[in-house]
């Protein structure tokens, strides 16, 4: 359905050029990652556990500093401007907002207050904000039911909705989504991606999403990057990636005979590791 517009036709809104990230001064995590996010597109960042997806997103949104990580090489450019040294808050004002992995709700605030913090940087008036709040409630009716309870006491999935909703409330230009589908019921996963698609198409919001659920991600994204141990090992339009036999086998769980039962993966199997 949404097949890729070739990379070079649209301008790159966000460019990550060969960055290297070190945690705690000693742990080298990203070993030269480059990627481009075209304006108005949905770009997916795929890869196994510990590949460095979260780190890449945090490098972009400048949240690394608070984890004692730093970008030691390379640069990150947003709309032609180097954003590495900006504060996260300034970046949000510029329209880049991240939905963090692991929800990170404000536990003691009510669900509604959580959503409203998303509108912190907005200056377009209460009415607009109230309208968007309604919109978020429309997307996630469950949240409306729980609007008055403290976020700390909502279920895992509900917290995930809060985190998404909160980001939408800031009316961003670009959303960095870290594992939006994690912990969500299947119905909701589809729904979340439908929302992503709707927001992307309707409001022209650009997405960069890190996802484990390769299957869905490649269905909705326009372009994909695959990461492995701190490096990008493969990239291409989503459709192409979907057809790639390696991706098929290792990320989509499909072999030539179609989907295999999880029960059958009993013994050791060959792993594919890209040499980079």
């Amino acid at each position, binding site marked *: 359905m949404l097949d890729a517009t070739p990379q070079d036709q649209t301008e790159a809104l966000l460019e990550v050029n060969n960055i290297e990230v070190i945690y705690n001064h000693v742990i080298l995590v990203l070993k030269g990652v480059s990627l481009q996010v075209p304006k108005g597109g949905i770009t997916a960042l795929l890869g196994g556990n510990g590949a460095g997806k979260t780190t890449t997103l945090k490098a972009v*949104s400048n*949240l690394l*500093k*608070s*984890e004692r990580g730093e970008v030691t090489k390379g640069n990150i450019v947003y709309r032609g401007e180097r954003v590495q040294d900006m*504060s*996260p*808050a*300034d*970046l*949000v*004002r510029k329209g880049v*907002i*991240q*939905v*963090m992995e692991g929800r*990170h*709700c*404000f*536990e*003691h*605030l009510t669900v509604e*207050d*959580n959503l*409203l*913090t*998303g509108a*912190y*940087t907005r200056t377009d008036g209460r009415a607009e904000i109230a309208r968007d709040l309604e919109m978020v409630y429309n997307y996630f009716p469950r949240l409306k039911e729980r609007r008055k309870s*403290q976020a*700390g*006491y909502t279920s895992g999935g509900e917290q995930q909705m809060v985190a998404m909703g*909160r*980001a939408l409330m*800031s009316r961003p230009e670009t959303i960095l989504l870290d594992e939006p589908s994690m912990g969500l019921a299947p119905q909701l996963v589809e729904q979340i991606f439908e929302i992503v698609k709707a927001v992307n198409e309707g409001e022209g919001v650009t997405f960069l999403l890190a996802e484990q659920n390769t299957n869905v991600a490649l269905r909705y994204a326009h372009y994909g990057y695959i990461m492995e141990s701190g490096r990008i090992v493969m990239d291409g339009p989503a459709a192409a990636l979907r057809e790639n036999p390696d991706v098929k086998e290792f990320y989509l769980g499909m072999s030539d005979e179609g989907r295999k039962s999880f029960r059958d993966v009993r013994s050791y199997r060959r792993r594919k590791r890209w040499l980079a």
Partner: protein
Amino acid sequence: MPDQLLFALEVTANGLMAGVMYSLVALGFVLIFKASGIFNYSQGVLALFAALTLVGIQEGQVPFAHLINAVTGLHVTEFGWKVPALLAILLTALVMVGLAIIIEKLVLKHLVNQEPIILFMATIGMAYFLEGFGDVMWGADIKTLDVGLPQGINETLESVTDKALGYGFFVDNLDIVATVVAVMLVTALTLFSQYSKQGRALRAVADDHQAALSVGISLRFIWVLVWSIAGFVALVAGIMWGSKSGVQFSLSLIALKALPVLMLGGFTSIPGAIVGGLIIGVGEKLFEFFAGPLIGGATENWFAYVLALVFLVFRPQGLFGEKIIERV
């Protein structure tokens, strides 16, 4: 009315007033805790610093005179002018804002997302620093602070109660002023934190620094804001306590009187600071009054803590504190 009851009433009244004085200090703690989850140990020193600065400005002292003299061999002490109280208070408030900015720049900024105990520790470091700094800046000798607040027994109240009850109650004028000021402060701060956008942001920051950053809340702004307000509260506390006992090092120890108040009222509740203060004030005074003579007196220091402890066993988050979320 029997004498004993009258005395107990008088003690209660004074306990309430003393409690308000504690609350003034506790308020500063609450503000910062609420806004950043930082348990700001330096609040007491902040009050001392504010009071020192106020006196220094009022008296036209040359800051760092001692250092200047020691290094250059000069002999400067005073500019030779006096600054009117109100202007001096205003200037001091500005100094406190400046201090907040510096603290944010030099300390807090670098400690985003750290564990609470680390932040607590950092504020202790700051307390040390400020204590030394205040002394280097203004000298360690004792200073008299006089911004024209009334002091001494309230005659009206005494004569009224004397007529009505046959025993004139003692209530200190300074305490009455403190009460009025405290009520105003608490009202203003409660409104601010409950009903403003910044108020919500404060609470968000306290819950999760990183998430707050991620939605675009500027920690720097929030912190400067809140430390400025806390600095102002410290100034108020400094004025009240300084008028009472002079300005000198021990002023910073009033923090210790505020801690049980905090504990009892809840670290995150502004009204809690007041209610906690009242309970502690009355409790410790009555205990000293009734039990003190039996067990040798000087019970106030520990009694406040024990009282708070007993409360906590039943309500671990204090009277008005936010419930501690326990989930897996």
